[in-house]
Structure formats: C-alpha cells, structure tokens
C-alpha cells in the first residue's frame, strides 16, 4: 500500500468513515455538474424528496450539447433547449451557482473549474464526467462519477469509494521541439495500455512534467482515464500557485499565504512509498498520432502502422481497428488525407494550446488546405476572450479556421458539430472511439494541437517538425 503520497494525504483528510461494504465514505470538496449527466440525478432527488446538502460546493456549467455557432434562445434543437432549461431550473431551485452562456465563465467543465480558481490543491473533486481526472494537475483528486453517484453527492456531499493503489510515473529529460504534453500522455497510454491503470491512481512527476505549465499538466491528467486510471495528479508547486493567484475563487490576502502553506504540506513526501513506479524518457519522444480506435493504439509519427500478424493477443482488435480506419499494416501515418481538423476539447483547448497553434500558423504563413473543414472551439468563454484580446482569432480566421463559441463540440458530436460519413478528423481531443465524433463511420486521429494545425495546412497527417525547422 502507498504511504506518504499526496493521494494518501488527501484521501485521509476526506475520509468520513468506513461503510459496511468496506468502501470509504469520502467527502467531496468540489462538485461540478453539466447539462447531460445531472438532470436524471436531480430527478432521483425529487423522487425521494431530498434536498442538496451543500449547495455552495456544487457549480454548474453547460458544455456537452451547447451549440458553438448560434447561441440564440430557444436553441434550434428542441432536445438541447429542454436539457438547458432543466439545468437552469435545477440550479435555481437548489441554489447552485450556474456559469451560464454569456456570463463570461461558461465552458467545458474541466476548463472552467481551474480557470475560476475553484479547482485547488488538496481537494477531492467529482463530476459526472470521466475527464474529471483533469483537475489532478493541481494536486487535487479528481474522479469521474455516474449519475447515481451524482445523486449521492447532491444528497450527502459524499461518494462511496475504495482506495486505490498509486503508480508513480516519472518523465525525465526535456521535451524536444514539436513534442508536447499530449505526446507524453499518448506515449504512456500506448505503453501501459488502455486498461493498464485499472486499480491505480497515477502520480506524474519528473523534470519533463515539472517543466510544463498548468495547461500541459492538465492535458496529461485529463487522459489518465484513457489509460484506465480513474485519477491522475501532479504535486502542486510554484507553477500551480502562480496560476491560481488572483483567480476568482481562490483565497486572497492572509488566507492566500495560509492556503499556499497548506498546499505545500500535502505534497508527496520525498521518501513516499508507491505501489508501482515506471519511468519514461521525455527527451526520446516524438510527435504522436493514433492509428486505431482507442487512445492506446498510437505510434510516434515516424513509426509504421503496426502489423496485426505480429501482435500477440491483439491481432483481431488491431485488424478491426485498421479496417475501420482504412489503414494498411506497415504504412506511414504521414500523408494520410484528412477531411476535418478539430482544435478543441478539455484536453487541448486552453489558451496555451491556442497560442502555440496560432504561432505556428503565423510563423509558417500556412493556410488551411481547400479539402479540409477546420474549426477552433475554445475551451471556455474565458479562453475565447483571452484569445481575442491577443488577436489569435484573427490568425485562425485568416488561415481558414472557423472560430467558435465554447463547448465540447466535435469532441463527442452531441451538438451540430459532427463528422459526416467516413470523414477522417485530425483531432486534439482525447477519444478516437468508433462513432465518437457523431458519425458511426467517422474516423479520428488523435494528436497535439500543433499537429492538428500541420494536418489542416497540408490536408494530410504531417510531422509538425517539418514545418518548424523549415524543411
């Protein structure tokens, strides 16, 4: 069992008691909700005539189905309008703060929490969304939960959970040019497997992780769940505190100093015990892409697509994935034509993602290829506003990208932004599951935002480094 890790420290402080099942009743410091997975939970509360126990610890926003083009009410889609009204009613009736569209604070729930300063080190954070692991970037424990558990949290501010093991993942060295946080996590998932983290919480550390800003750390923690780990975190440090300072919901003045002292105290001890340790060499990484239909089916951009005949055990799954993707064993991903470029999602639609993408467009003078439909969907209204102040929107527009409102959009295709037919999408999101982007036959290739830009400009999957050193 782990000892002296941040996970242990935070877990112990939030453990209310052991339940008869052997699970722990764990107090939830911050509960985030959105329009798709919360209405059923409020329905269950009503059925049982229960009230929300700690309404000031739940915050709501709308992201999953919200349109990112036309926000005029009522929404064009009736179901979307109904879900939105449901959220409005529920938050109003239960005194829950709602960051609604137009408030300046709406956006993807995992972008909004940190941006508002709600997400803080040492908290337990849950949300009816598996990518709640994102918040671990701040040294919080973030868990995705189902709707029945949302009901638990609304009614009791607790979840029932079993303690997990902790795996320390150390990424050494410094990242080469053209390689980003996204490439680190895609590599980790490819090597450890999409179920390699089941039963574990991942603690990410090492020079390559510590050198990242908060946006990069969030990209990594975000995809912990794609590796089967329910949560992933980075120990809080000066980078974390600098990011949080002055944000809307963080303490100010004397309380801020107290907070920082507390946040330092919950870091993993230098001699903490871990249940497992693995190490990656960050300086040996190259830009990565997926070739298959789960996030673990990925390669470095210069590697060939694997041959099912040589894959022990995974032969059938590999064949199936290649058939869906229409790829051949041994071929290169470079040069695979794309139809859509999507720069968005809770993995990679934060301000530094957009800055890097815009920088690349500006420095190369690149424009979106005629064959490609390209869109930028900022992660939140805050990101959008910041980008517009920096005139990044103009850079994107000039290059041929659509500039949209904030939301999940084509990450899961619940609004009008969907792939059509067999379209192939170069995507900065986190899931390449069959049907994920709205079309049952659509195809997704996951990559970093810079790689999305490179693909958009060339109309095909491209090694972004070829644009950087002027080859």
């Amino acid at each position: 069992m782990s000892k002296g890790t941040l996970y242990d420290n935070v877990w112990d402080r939030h453990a209310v008691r052991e339940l008869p099942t052997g699970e722990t009743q764990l107090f939830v410091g911050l509960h985030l909700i959105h329009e798709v997975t919360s209405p059923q939970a409020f329905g269950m509360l009503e059925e049982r005539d229960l009230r929300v126990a700690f309404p000031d610890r739940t915050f709501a926003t709308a992201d999953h189905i919200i349109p990112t083009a036309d926000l005029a009410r009522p929404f064009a889609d009736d179901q979307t309008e109904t879900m939105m009204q449901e959220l409005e009613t529920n938050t109003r009736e239960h005194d829950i703060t709602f960051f609604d569209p137009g408030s300046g604070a709406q956006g993807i729930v995992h972008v909004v929490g940190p941006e508002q300063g709600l997400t803080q080190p040492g908290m337990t954070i849950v949300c009816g969304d598996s990518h709640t692991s994102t918040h671990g970037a701040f040294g919080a424990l973030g868990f995705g939960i189902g709707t029945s558990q949302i009901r638990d949290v609304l009614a009791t501010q607790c979840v029932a959970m079993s303690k997990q093991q902790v795996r320390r993942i150390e990424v050494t060295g410094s990242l080469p040019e053209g390689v980003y946080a996204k490439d680190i996590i895609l590599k980790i998932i490819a090597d450890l497997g999409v179920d390699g983290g089941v039963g574990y919480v991942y603690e990410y550390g090492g020079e390559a992780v510590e050198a990242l800003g908060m946006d990069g750390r969030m990209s990594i923690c975000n995809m912990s769940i794609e590796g089967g780990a329910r949560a992933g975190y980075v120990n809080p440090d000066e980078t974390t505190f600098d990011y949080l300072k002055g944000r809307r919901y963080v303490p100010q003045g004397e309380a801020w100093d107290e907070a920082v002292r507390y946040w330092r105290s919950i870091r993993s001890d230098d001699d903490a015990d871990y249940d497992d340790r693995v190490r990656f060499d960050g300086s040996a990484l190259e830009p990565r892409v997926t070739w298959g239909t789960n996030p673990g089916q990925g390669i470095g951009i210069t590697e060939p697509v694997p041959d099912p005949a040589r894959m022990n055990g995974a032969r059938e799954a590999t064949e199936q994935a290649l058939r869906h993707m229409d790829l051949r064993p041994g071929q290169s991903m470079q040069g695979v034509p794309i139809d859509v470029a999507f720069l968005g999602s809770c993995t990679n639609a934060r301000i530094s993602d957009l800055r890097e993408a815009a920088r690349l467009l500006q420095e190369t003078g690149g424009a979106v290829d005629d064959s490609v439909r390209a869109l930028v969907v900022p992660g939140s209204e805050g990101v959008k506003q910041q980008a517009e102040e920096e005139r990044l929107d103009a850079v994107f527009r000039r290059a041929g990208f659509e500039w949209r409102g904030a939301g999940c959009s084509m990450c899961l295709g619940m609004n009008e932004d969907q792939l059509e037919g067999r379209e192939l999408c170069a995507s900065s999101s986190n899931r390449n599951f069959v049907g994920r982007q709205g079309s049952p036959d659509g195809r997704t290739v996951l990559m970093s935002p810079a790689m999305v830009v490179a693909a958009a400009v060339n109309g095909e999957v491209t090694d972004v480094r070829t644009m950087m050193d002027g080859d």
Partner: protein
Amino acid sequence: MSKMQTQTVTRVAGPGVAVRGNDIDTDQVIPARFMKEVTFDNMGQYAFFDARRDDSDAFNDHPFNQHDDASILVVNQNFGCGSSREHAPQALMRWGIEGIVGESFAEIFAGNCQALGIPTATASHDTIERIMERVEQSEGPELTLDVESETVMVGDEVLDVRIKPSQKEALLGGIWDTTSLMKSYLDEVQVTADNLPYLHNFGA
C-alpha cells in the same frame, strides 16, 4: 423498472448473450447522440445502437439482435471503458440485462453497475470462453450468476467467478444504493467538513 432502495441481489438468472471483444467502450454501448434526454426511461432501445445495425440501418447479426430475451451479458476485457455515462449500464439494464460476467471491467462502469444493483463478476479468459461458447450454441443453456457463492451455473456446469468484496457486500446487504446509507452519517460528514481548511477560507 428501477429496483427498490433496499432490495438485496443474491442471484440473477436467465438466458445469456455474449458480446465478444476487448475494450468495448461506453460510446459503443450507447452513442452520445442518444443522451439528449433528461431521464433514462428510453435508454433501453439505444443499447449497442450502431453496432446492431448495418450500413443500410437494418439489424445485423449482433448478439443483441439474436438473443433479445437475454438477461446475463458475457464480455471479455476492460468492458465499459471510456466515459462515466451511467447511460451505458442504464441502457443495458433497461434492455433487460441484470448481471454481467467478464474478464475485466473499467472501474467507473463497474461502480455504475453496482449503484444499479447489477453484479459485475470476473473470471479467467478460459472460463469466459467456456461460457461464451455455451451461450452461443443454439438453444444455449440458461445462466445463473450466484453472488453469494461467486459462481456461474451454465446448465449443470458450475464455474467459479469473482465479485469484488465491496460489491458483494453491497448486493447481498441491499446497500448498493448508497444515498440513504451515507445520509445517515451526515453528522460525521459535517465533522470532516469542519476540519477541511479550504472550506473555512484557511482560517483567515
């Protein structure tokens, strides 16, 4: 459709259905476009919606089309990975599934099943293969998943499976619905909250 809060789940029995493949994600169990509803009532019809249809939208030979009376689902590794959507087990439950046996499950999915009183039992690859083969026979035998003894009965053959101790306790004790249980400890919850500095502006 939904079970009573205090109901114990000791065994589930009925015809089986095998859905083969590792890493079957929740987007396959229920595509996101069917989640635009404010209740779970209609979710049953969306179970494996795309996987059950061919290019011209006709039903294909997916096991859910062939065994539409099944109540025990048999799967391989890492079933239910991906999203936390409870829509996935809700869709399976409302389609008729009462218990699942597999090589392994994604954690959030298994937790969601538990909260609905659906056991998720695990077994070795060989055991699963054995069950699948029997289920896929025409006139395949009924399955009985016994939570107490951690076994699956396939016809007259008894095979060992595992159920996580906490899930077993929850199902047998009728405490898989944790809301009222945890609510009964609200005083202790308040004590925990009082000791968390961030809920009190760090003492300033």
